[in-house]
């Protein structure tokens, strides 16, 4: 079965501190992983995907197949990073395709 686990429901850091949002996945195939973000009163939007290997708004995420993890990192958190973050896995099984989301981590960056 496909599963995405985000162990931290809430994460609070101070401005300028490093931040890491954890994501672990369970998937028997070749995973395609994403981080989506939802800022207050805004729509859910893509932050980054592992195949692009881009750094968006200073965030990076590396796929570690050995540890089945896709943690999101930023070296210096900003107040505007406060949002809800969801890790997601694109899963294909028997011709059926779906996006499996974790429960999300609410990040608060304090001044």
């Amino acid at each position, binding site marked *: 079965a496909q599963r995405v686990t985000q162990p931290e429901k809430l994460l609070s850091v101070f401005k300028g501190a490093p931040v890491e949002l954890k994501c672990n996945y369970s998937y028997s195939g070749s995973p395609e992983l994403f981080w989506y973000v939802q800022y207050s009163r805004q729509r859910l939007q893509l932050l980054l995907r592992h195949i692009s290997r881009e750094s968006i708004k200073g965030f990076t995420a590396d796929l570690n197949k050995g540890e089945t993890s896709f943690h999101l990192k930023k070296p210096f958190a900003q107040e505007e990073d406060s949002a809800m973050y969801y890790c997601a896995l694109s899963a294909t099984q028997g011709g*059926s395709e779906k996006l499996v989301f974790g429960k999300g981590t609410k990040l608060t960056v304090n001044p």
Partner: protein
Amino acid sequence: DAGVTQSPTHLIKTRGQQVTLRCSPISGHKSVSWYQQVLGQGPQFIFQYYEKEERGRGNFPDRFSARQFPNYSSELNVNALLLGDSALYLCASSFGPATDTQYFGPGTRLTVL
């Protein structure tokens, strides 16, 4: 481009009723996916349609159905509503199937009394 649009914004129904939610994808996008988001949880996949064909179905009862029209807009229908169906229903569109970047709509908040 207005992005993905959904209607209505809010909806209140009573148990046993039926509801239809609507979604218009971004122009040029051929795939629409539906998600249910219960408070405090991540979005849970319900359906994906690509080129008007069902390409994926989540673990939801047959009370949930959907379709995609020739203009790629989509409807989600839920019959015999239960209290547990109360949630935010999200629609997302993408150019291709699920592995493409998905663009989400603002959602329809359904309350079942």
